[in-house]
């Protein structure tokens, strides 16, 4: 992944914006940062403390490395929770439009896991999943794709989550 000076500025402001959107207090913003650092260190077999588990619930988890991505997928499979993956790009306006809304959904629905994949950062994942338009939301249950929404379509996204999430 190659960033120019502008990219880095832009990217960090985007992270700050999504952290702010999820809500908010310093605790949660901090949790978001922890999650990113952790993802980059790509530890496997990590034992989660209760605090870390709580920190991930209610936020959109950004996967910045293949290891972090695979680990989150595995966790999703094991937990049998509905996993919603947002395939996004830093240069995609519609992605910025929907990001705050996704943050709100994550906060409202702690029993759904929200993951975020930047298609430039994890190019191979985006290619494998045949992502051509952004944002694309993939709905997974126990490792299987059960539905998808292409585009920032708030109502459709909300309705499909309601349809697939366990009661």
């Amino acid at each position, binding site marked *: 992944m190659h960033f120019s000076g502008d990219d880095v500025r832009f990217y960090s402001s985007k992270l700050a914006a999504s952290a702010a959107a999820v809500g908010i207090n310093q605790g949660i913003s901090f949790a978001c940062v922890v999650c990113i650092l952790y993802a980059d260190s790509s530890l496997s077999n990590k034992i989660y403390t209760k605090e870390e588990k709580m920190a991930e619930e209610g936020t959109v988890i950004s996967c910045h490395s293949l290891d972090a991505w695979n680990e989150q997928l595995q966790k999703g499979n094991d937990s049998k929770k509905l996993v919603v993956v947002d395939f996004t790009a830093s240069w*995609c*306006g*519609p992605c910025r*439009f929907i990001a705050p809304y996704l943050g709100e959904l994550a906060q409202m629905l702690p029993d759904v896991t929200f993951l975020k994949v930047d298609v430039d950062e994890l190019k191979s994942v985006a290619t494998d999943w045949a992502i051509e338009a952004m944002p694309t939301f993939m709905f997974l249950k126990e490792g299987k794709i059960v539905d998808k929404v292409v*585009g920032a379509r708030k*109502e*459709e996204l909300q309705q499909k989550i309601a349809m697939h999430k366990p009661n």
Partner: protein
Amino acid sequence: MAVSGFEGFEKRLELHFYGDDPMGLRRLDFSGLQEVLDAVQCTVVSAVGNCFFDAYVLSESSLFVYPKKMIIKTCGTTQLLKSIPCLLGHADELGLTVCGCKYTRGNFIFPEAQPFPHTSFSEEVMYLEESLPNSLCYRKACIMPSKTSHAWHVYTASDDDHHQMVGHLVGPNTFTIEVCMTQLDAALARKFFRRHGDRSSGDAAGKEMTAATGIGEISPSALVCDFAFDPCGYSMNGVDGPHYSTIHVTPEDGYSYASFECVASAGGDLGEVLKKVVRVFRPGTMSVSICTGDGGVEMCSRVAAALRVVGYDARSCRVEDFPAAGSVTFQTFSIRRK
């Protein structure tokens, strides 16, 4: 005609920029975009992007953002031109300089309902002249009349470096086509009303209309972002590689209106696309305007030949040259009565 109703005829603004950043306008953050849309008085309904551009369905029509080009099309009583000062300000912050502008619109059904600066074409031109920088020194404004109620209003402006590039405002080997349709077939227009008691989302109802009306077949390879308004009305953007298409429908009887617009490559089958569009709406009267680098006259005969097959007679045809835009054609048609 109804005393007053929803104005379907859109205003369309296209701005071109130059600058070094390959992502250009796509870096505009959402609050910046929101400011632009606030000035126009509309909001984002749904949106999608690919590696070439972002496409937004708005509460009143559509917005397309390319790295170096922006197209906003709005209907109703929106104040489209008021977005220019705000847009140029944001572009400047992104290191972009405006180098071309094109404004087009048809003939409003309810002109007296339009707010400033859309009260008349001369008012609009005056506002454009004041809002654009002096560097855009090659300017032209023109009303292209017809023998029907349709007329085409065109304004273009370009800077010194770009005005001699034929088709600078359209791109090489591509053209933009804008179709305005009035007096839609009543039975076909009814398909753009929500079913009574339907509680599905605007996204889901839009998808149903795309399939039920045949709109989905116009360009089958395009990704469609559609939306159905309550109780009636429909908008869609099609995204197909670097090309967009868009349809907006105001189905109410008395002032029914539908528009189709797309960018296509010169080699594509324009006639087939037009035939499919006409079959969706069966308008009583329609106009077709094409902006192309060159070959405007030849385009006119292709359009007339295709529409003759589906029962439409040409009523008028005009071709006018604009700096940087190349040829703009304007043809009108009416349905052949049996």
